[in-house]
């Protein structure tokens, strides 16, 4: 190399070095970082991301559990694809599980046996996959409950609620598809029932069944097709929606519970680096570790005990995985009387309602809820502070009512097991559950709403009269009273910082000129719903009320509400 050339190269390097503010990196990690940043500019984004603040609360971990369970499913699922053979071609079993030796079965079932008995560690991976899938649906559901009951779905997060709703529905279908793949007797009976479900669809049912199964049930197409849906189509959609879900969480910044220092305009918590990296990262390992431990110790879906699928035999107590239980229960409750003949055609509503309509209808209502509530309240503000469930009594009651209906359906899926265990008539249990499906949610609504209102009143009492200190004092005249301790402003803030909207006044359904108009009628409907939501309400304590309560209590000097934080001892004579 000539001197001139190397001098020019040195010039270039010198120019580069001037542009880099930190100078040349010295450590290996530094060199990699600089290399990457020069090609991606990642430092700009990273410095924003790493500082991002997340509020701390145990209930915020539920979504994390769902996320990690999904990742664990993806990871273990990839392992399983290396040994699973998605084929309904028949083989005579020659593996190491002796009770099934020589029996004719599908390659899908035979390869699942191989994963369980002949691949070292295969059973562990299979069981982690199944347990993680169950955990995914559980945590996702409980996460949805948290979001619902705290009102986290309100503006600007409605889109994320809808995405979550779709994720939840797809998780059920993904689970059912995966559960069906081993082609064992139990899951095969599930597919058999699914074929019956498809046939119940009005007009196109038989065609749908023939298209999905590639001919008459069971054919040889369903397992390979479910495999494609289970490992490619649905995971791709799930991962895509999940990424959008997370991006929106970043954009919106996380919601937080109300409390001192927390406002609609800030987010109080810990930064991603280092606290959340350690906590959330560590939590992934905790979830993974716990699922692994369960998978090591508790057998799930022992397909070897069921035998290969055959349309003729069946076992008593046939049930799907838990998350399909409610739909199965609905099928058990819907009476045969719902099957009709119309112009010579058969309309099998006893199957169609529970097996085909229930899930999309349930999720449509769920997904629509934020929009319904927003229409009723007319509230167009952004909400970043969560509601304590008691402070939204009607919403909380509606949620509990919906969960109650779900639980009734879920219990119905075990009507045979209950009948055996409780020595009761299965007919009586089924009839009772049919009634309860309509009655229990109403009761649950009423009870929950009353509990919420009571808790709110209790909060008011606590604010107005302080906390019972447990100290009894005897006065000089011989009277006894319990010393009540005033709340400190931080504790008090949590109990008084909520909104209790009043219902909209109900109009006449007529416009200003006394003519009934569509718009006015709509407004009237809205007012009626608003009354349903807000007619029973408890308002937060105001400073004036607190002052009055102090005055009424006949004690020492009344503290101004924003006074010094130390607790003021105060006695209340009862």
């Amino acid at each position, binding site marked *: 190399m000539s001197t001139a050339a190397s001098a020019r190269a040195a010039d270039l390097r010198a120019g580069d070095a001037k542009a880099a503010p930190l100078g040349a990196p010295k450590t290996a990690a530094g060199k990699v970082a600089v290399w990457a940043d020069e090609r991606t500019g990642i430092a700009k984004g990273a410095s924003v991301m790493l500082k*991002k*603040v997340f509020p701390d609360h145990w209930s915020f971990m539920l979504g994390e559990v769902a996320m990690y369970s999904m990742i664990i499913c993806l990871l273990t699922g990839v392992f399983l694809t290396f040994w699973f053979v998605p084929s309904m071609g028949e083989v005579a079993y020659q593996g*190491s599980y002796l009770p099934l030796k020589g029996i004719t079965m599908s390659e899908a079932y035979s390869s699942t046996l191989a994963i369980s008995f002949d691949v070292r560690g295969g059973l562990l991976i299979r*069981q982690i996959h199944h347990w993680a899938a169950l955990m995914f649906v559980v945590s996702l559901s409980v996460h949805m409950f948290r979001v619902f009951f705290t009102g986290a779905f309100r503006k600007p997060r409605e889109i994320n609620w809808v995405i979550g709703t779709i994720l939840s529905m797809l998780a059920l279908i993904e689970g059912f598809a995966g559960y069906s793949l081993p082609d064992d007797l139990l899951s095969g009976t599930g597919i058999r*029932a699914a*074929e019956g*479900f498809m046939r119940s669809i009005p007009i196109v*049912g*038989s065609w749908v*069944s023939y*298209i999905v*199964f*590639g001919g*008459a049930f069971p054919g040889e*197409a369903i397992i390979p097709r479910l495999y494609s849906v289970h490992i490619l189509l649905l995971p791709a959609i799930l991962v895509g929606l999940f990424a959008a879900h997370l991006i929106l969480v970043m*954009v*919106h910044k996380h919601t937080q519970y109300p409390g*001192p*220092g927390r406002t609609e*305009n*800030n*987010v*109080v*918590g*810990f930064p991603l680096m*280092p*606290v959340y990296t*350690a*906590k959330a*990262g*560590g939590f*992934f*390992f905790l979830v*993974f*570790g716990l699922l692994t*431990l369960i998978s*090591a*110790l508790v057998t799930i879906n022992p397909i070897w005990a069921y035998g290969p699928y*055959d*349309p003729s035999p069946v076992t*008593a107590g*046939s049930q799907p995985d838990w998350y399909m239980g409610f739909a199965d229960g609905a*099928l058990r409750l819907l009476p*045969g009387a719902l*099957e009709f003949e119309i112009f010579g*055609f*058969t309309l099998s509503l*006893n*199957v169609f309602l529970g*097996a085909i309509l229930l899930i999309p209808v349930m999720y449509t209502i769920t997904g629509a809820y934020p929009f319904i509530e927003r229409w009723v309240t007319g509230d167009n503000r*952004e909400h970043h502070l969560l509601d304590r469930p008691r402070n939204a009594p009607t919403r909380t009651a509606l949620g509990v009512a919906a969960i109650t209906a779900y639980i009734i359906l879920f219990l119905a899926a075990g009507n045979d097991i209950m009948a055996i265990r409780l020595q009761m008539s299965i*007919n009586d249990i*089924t009839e009772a559950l049919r009634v309860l499906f309509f009655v229990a949610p109403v009761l649950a609504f009423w009870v929950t709403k009353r509990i919420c209102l009571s808790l709110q009143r209790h909060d008011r009492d606590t604010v107005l009269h302080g906390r019972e200190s447990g100290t009894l004092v005897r006065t000089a005249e011989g009277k006894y009273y319990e010393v009540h301790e005033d709340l400190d*402003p*931080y504790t008090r*803030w949590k109990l*008084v910082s909520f909104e209790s909207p009043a219902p909209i006044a109900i109009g006449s359904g007529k416009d200003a000129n006394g003519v009934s108009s569509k718009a006015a009628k709509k407004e009237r409907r809205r007012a009626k719903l608003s009354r349903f939501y807000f007619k029973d309400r408890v308002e937060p304590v105001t400073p*004036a009320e607190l002052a009055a309560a102090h005055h009424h209590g006949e004690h020492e000097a009344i503290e101004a*509400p924003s006074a010094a*934080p130390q607790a003021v001892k105060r006695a209340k004579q009862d």
Partner: protein
Amino acid sequence: MSDKGLPATFENPGLPPHIHRAADDDPRAAKRAERQVAALFTLSIIGTLGFIVSYFAVPNDTTVFIPFIGKTILLNILLGVTLAVSLLGIGFGAVHWAKTLMSDEEVIEERHPIASSDEDRAKAVGILNAGAEQAQLKRRPILKATGATAMGLFALPLGVQLAGSMGNPTKALEESKETIWDVPEGGKPIRLVRDVERTPIKASDVAIGSVFHILPETIKDSKHVLADKAKAAVLLMRLHPSSFANDSLGEKAKSWGYEGIVAYSKICTHVGCPVGLYEQQTHHLLCPCHQSTFDVTRDCNVIFGPAKRALPQLKITVDDEGYLVAPQGFAEPVGPSYWERKK
């Protein structure tokens, strides 16, 4: 403000003062926390090593008895527990580190409204409009119309290919009515054979109160055994002739049977599970999937549960050698209801 000069609502008191943890103030507590975290990480390393040793050292088929769990495969337990230790060690270590040694002073980040400012919106709309202008969208409506139509239609071929090639639904209606019990015009009656053994069965083999799982003899020639079985599976029971109900249903059941032996489709008319549970005392058939209950004495009509229709009966008799045979197939489609069932 109220009369007394008090505000209408309380004021947010701001963040409460930070309370220090033991490890914040006491270097010995901090050191102890450090040792605990290091111990957890070390435990993880031991778990990882344990996994690798178990993987290579423990045979696949060794079983072991574990209290509360029962007899189980040793390798699965060892691999699972060691992997769990490896993962939990990292998890607990990291969380403990975060909780004891990393700062627990809360940080406040400001929020900004999600919506863009009016200027930003105007700018975006401006760019869109300018783009549409440049593309001459408004001036050339024919491009807009044909382009939109093309975009609307382009997925159609893919959809047609997919739906059209999945299966041949035109056969659905005829095949739903057929089973391998069907006897061609002038054909021989089909013998009933035991499911699994596939041996023919004599009327004298069927004692009162017994139940047999039955397939047609033709199953041996079947090219799609499972598909044929899924429609042809039959349950055969013998009742005392006096057990049948004294009405038209009972009479029909009896007349389609042979000396109290009756055969019914085993495929539930609800969603198609095999109706496998026969209660001898009550003569009830119960489907284990959704508990539809059928009364054999009344032509398997539904007496409880979600099914609507009776199980189809297979007409049976005996041949010259005394074996049970079906002279004809089912009179109606078997299995779950579907739209065109009656057509």
